[in-house]
């Protein structure tokens, strides 16, 4: 029996990604050009970063729907300060925004025991509102060219530096989660919180950390967003929560917690980013983007739960079948009766 762990699922996601490119390539061959593929991956950098952050939260069995607003707020704070010539302060404050939102969420969920979907939904509203207050409803524009070009710098003409850094980050986090003592706590807490408590694992603190990381990564995503897009509207980052949750689920991170890896989140984010470009290449209006993401999310979740039920059922049957004594030995016992 195969072990159904996160990696095989991440592999199927990679296959899905390749098939998607090939499928669209059949209709429009220019989609298969290297430049387009790289563009697709590079354009997904913000999704990737935010997805890796939210992955911590989902793996511990919670959810964070405030990441979209956090991306927007961090982008607005960073952008406005960069515009005013205070780049370093802008970046630091954007990170602080992310960490603060994460602390707020984490505190509400762990210590006040508010269900995470409600807590973060509320936070999403609060933060989104604060963007309007902060920007007075105006766009943050006229960012300096040097800042905008940060996101365009490429590494040997392939990946952008942003994407490369993200990939390095992914590898580091992957090692942290799988090799370090504390890194393993996240999965443990999501897998069985009561069992984790009995082993002396600090469940609340682990969840709080997950939320802080989710906020921090959304903050980093916001900085990248400001640099990539070059202007920040009050609705910047809106809908990102759905994209990144879909990315995580697509990458094999279970919404019930305890299962998944950063590799999965990254591949899932690449798929999500490519999806928007697929529409362009198929000549469909981009209005369908969100609808398709939503449909995809639901399909995967349904598929996953059916698949999990089936495999659990199959395991159960095998376990039971293994128990039945072979007919010869059984008759040996009962034939004397």
């Amino acid at each position, binding site marked *: 029996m195969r072990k159904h762990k996160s990696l095989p699922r991440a592999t199927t996601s990679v296959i899905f990604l390749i098939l998607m490119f090939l499928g669209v390539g059949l209709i429009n061959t220019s989609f298969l050009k290297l430049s387009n593929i790289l563009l697709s991956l590079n354009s997904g950098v913000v999704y990737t970063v935010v997805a890796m952050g939210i992955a911590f939260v989902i793996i511990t069995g919670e959810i964070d729907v405030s990441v979209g607003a956090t991306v927007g707020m961090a982008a607005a704070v960073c952008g406005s300060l960069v515009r005013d010539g205070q780049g370093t302060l802008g970046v630091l404050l954007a990170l602080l925004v992310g960490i603060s939102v994460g602390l707020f969420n984490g505190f509400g969920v762990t210590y006040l025991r508010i269900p995470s979907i409600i807590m973060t939904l509320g936070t999403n509203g609060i933060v989104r509102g604060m963007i309007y207050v902060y920007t007075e409803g105006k766009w943050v524009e006229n960012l300096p060219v040097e800042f905008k070009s940060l996101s365009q710098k490429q590494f040997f003409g392939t990946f952008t530096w942003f994407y490369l850094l993200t990939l390095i980050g992914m590898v580091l986090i992957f090692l942290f989660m799988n090799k370090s003592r504390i890194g393993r706590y996240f999965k443990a807490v999501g897998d069985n919180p009561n069992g984790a408590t009995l*082993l*002396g694992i600090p469940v609340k603190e682990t969840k709080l950390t997950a939320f802080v990381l989710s906020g921090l990564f959304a903050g980093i995503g916001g900085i990248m967003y400001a640099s990539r897009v070059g202007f920040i509207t009050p609705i910047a980052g809106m809908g990102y929560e759905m994209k990144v949750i879909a990315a995580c689920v697509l990458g094999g991170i*279970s919404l019930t917690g305890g299962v998944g890896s950063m590799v999965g989140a990254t591949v899932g984010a690449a798929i999500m980013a490519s999806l928007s470009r697929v529409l362009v290449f198929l000549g469909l209006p981009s209005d369908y983007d969100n609808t398709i993401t939503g449909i995809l999310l639901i399909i995967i979740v349904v598929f996953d739960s059916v698949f999990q039920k089936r495999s659990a059922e199959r395991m159960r049957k095998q*376990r039971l*079948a293994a128990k039945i004594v072979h007919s010869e030995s059984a008759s040996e016992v*009962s034939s004397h*009766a």
Partner: protein
Amino acid sequence: MSEKRSNTLLSVRSITKSFHTNSVLKGIDLDLQESDVLALIGGNGAGKSTLMKIIMGIYQQDAGEISISGELVNMNKPSIALAHGIYLVPQEPMLFPNMSVEENIMMGFREKPKNLQKQLTQLMKQLDWVIDLSRTAGSLSIAEQQLVEILRGLLRNAKILILDEPTSSLTFNEVESLFKIVKDLKKKGIGIIYITHRLTEVFTIANRVAIMRDGLITLSGPVEDFDYDMLVKGLLPEGDDSENTSVSQETKPLEYASLKPVFEVKKLCGNGFHDVSLSVYPGEILGLAGVVGAGRTELATTIFGKDEVLSGTVLIGNKDITGFSTRDVMDEGVNYVPEDRFLHGIFGMLDVAANTTSSRMRNLSKFFLQPKAEQEITEEYIKQFRTKVTGQDQVMSSLSGGNQQKVVIARALATEPKVLILDEPTRGIDAGARTDVYSIIHQLKARGIAILLISSDFEEIIELSDRALSMYSGRINHEFSKHEITQDNLMAAAFGVQPGRVANA
């Protein structure tokens, strides 16, 4: 060695604990010495689990103190308890189902994985245990999960090991090897608190015993000072000692010649059992003995329409109900009281009335429920079964185990079945409630209901059954008439050994 024995590992003094107004522990004193195996027995709701959770640092006591090896410890977190060498193996193993066995065991250590792996292999060799470390924990049987839990505790060099009903889901061989382990640990000087409901185990494994009742330790001392009856008396509520556990309601043997079976299973095969044939007569209690995992529960749930029938037939009267859905099987007059009432049996959040009548919701309602009818039925069963409730509106999960079981049986009866399958009806409930459940079963028999009684407790089978079958590894391997039902015969058959003398099958 004799002086070493007097080293006190754990000392608990005047611990009290209340939840809201409900006082659960009323001043507990408990000592555990090196190499002690202290059997802690007590009915459900006596406060055993609460006490263990306090020792483990999961709950905080309201008053009282805990010292480890003479040193006063403020046990406010499980990590502190672990650091002081206490490890609790919970009744329901608390593994991480999505992780491998190895990851499960290694979780939470500061040491290097390589060292741990070495220690683990050594430990397993020492104990002579074979378990595939790469298996996903979710695919392990309960027994295997328990072994993993014990390994976790041992790898932590626990000095105080708490085993909470460790044998309740183990097979015979596994119990044997567990006892061997306990003896090994004892030799090493480890102190063990052994919580159990099986009184015979007390004499097999423990050297000291403590009886808990109503939040107090009522009796304790060396095992030599006790016998079986004293333990039973200690468990029963005060002033109730006239009523013993054994309900000696001798019933006349059934006149099989004049009866026709109301329920028949012919050559039934399913997941977990093979080629099972049996028949039950009206007013008969047919015992189905065997160890946990022999396939009895799977047989019952398959008959009840919860799992697929691979081949064979199930008849009620002359009607073939093979492969019917649960609802249809119930309509035909078969009902099932499941083994694990927490998992399958109760609606914990609902009140007693709703639980009692949930099985016949459809008969009770046109579209809206009829509260009056609901109340009448519930009241009838509360009285009949002597269920201890504050009222019909008491929330189910706040009842004790025995009373929950009564409500679950009442619910099955509310459908007025002709055939009732009881799966481990007294597992995990205290002696007093057990007596009540037995007399309920006798009442049902007198009403002419055919009862299939699944039990791992052979005394229960002997006590109640008119006839008994034993199941071994998915097959029925013996049938016993009333006078053949003895502890020895059942034990032998249940463990796949040829009973000394077996009459016609």
